[in-house]
């Protein structure tokens, strides 16, 4: 049986989140099982079901390097430090 990934959107401003997965023979039964297993108590106002085979998956190894790219995660502290120094020196 194909595996489906379940995404739910709670009421309010929050977007869809990944709620889990389920196995079902086809889309129609996946929708029925989703309702009875993931949205029994109003956990979502919208639901997406995606057959796992249709998900484009990226290679985790290719993602590893992005964790070490400090230049891509500028928190502004260097700029703030320089501006502070210039303010104190009376040049700003």
């Amino acid at each position, binding site marked *: 049986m194909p595996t489906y990934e379940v995404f739910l959107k709670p009421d309010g401003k929050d977007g869809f989140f990944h709620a889990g997965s389920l196995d079902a023979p086809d889309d129609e*039964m996946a929708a*029925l099982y989703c309702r*009875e297993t993931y949205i029994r108590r109003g956990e979502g106002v919208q639901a997406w079901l995606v057959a796992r085979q249709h998900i484009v998956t990226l290679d985790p190894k290719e993602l590893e390097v992005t964790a070490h790219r400090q230049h891509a995660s500028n928190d502004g502290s260097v700029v703030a430090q320089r501006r502070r120094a210039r303010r104190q020196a009376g040049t700003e």
Partner: protein
Amino acid sequence: MTSAIFRNSPPPEINDAAATILLALADDEFMMGHRHSEWLGLSPFLEEDLTTASIGQDEFGHARALYALIWPSWEMRDADVVRRPPGSWRSCALTEMAGVPWEKSLIRHWLYDLIEPFRWTSATTAYGASATGLSALAERVECEEHFHRAHATALVQRLGAVDTARMRLQHALDDVAPTAMALLHELDSIDASQGAAATQAVLEAAQQASLKITHVSPTVIDRRVRHADAESALRQFVDVVAFDPDARW
């Protein structure tokens, strides 16, 4: 004797036609809830397991709402409902019989839920004006029953498309059909138009699933008499209540 059985006051006697019909529906829903719950942890796969339990819980909810409608002034606890003596129950053989193997349970779920909306329509047509809250309850129940039917129908159709599965379903249907036909016959005798519509719905569903319902002369349901399998179920209810008599459910 009843004062020893019932914790508060005993349920008032059922003496009008509306309550008789509604109690039959309520006890059928309760029994279905119980029979669904018996598959918790045992269904063929997880999704089916959770769905069966969820549907069973819905049925208990419908039963509870009906009991409150039938006995509005009785300070009812769920424990009192299950402490009724066997002769006070009004469920039928279709819902009382044990659902083993699994396909028998599925076929019962399918047939019972296919017939159910016509019983509600019949009850609301006859008593909706006099029984306060009945029409609103029927409407709410249908919101859930719609999905119960969709689940049973979808599953039976898919299994019906596979030769080995269809043989097992057909075997289960041959086993269950006489009790379902008795229920149809009962509905037909209460409300001919709903009885005919329900029969039509069942026959169409069977055809769509490539299953055959062999005609047998329908037996007349005597709801004062329990099916042999009901005894152990009723004993289990009382055992659960006795485990913690003060629990609020």
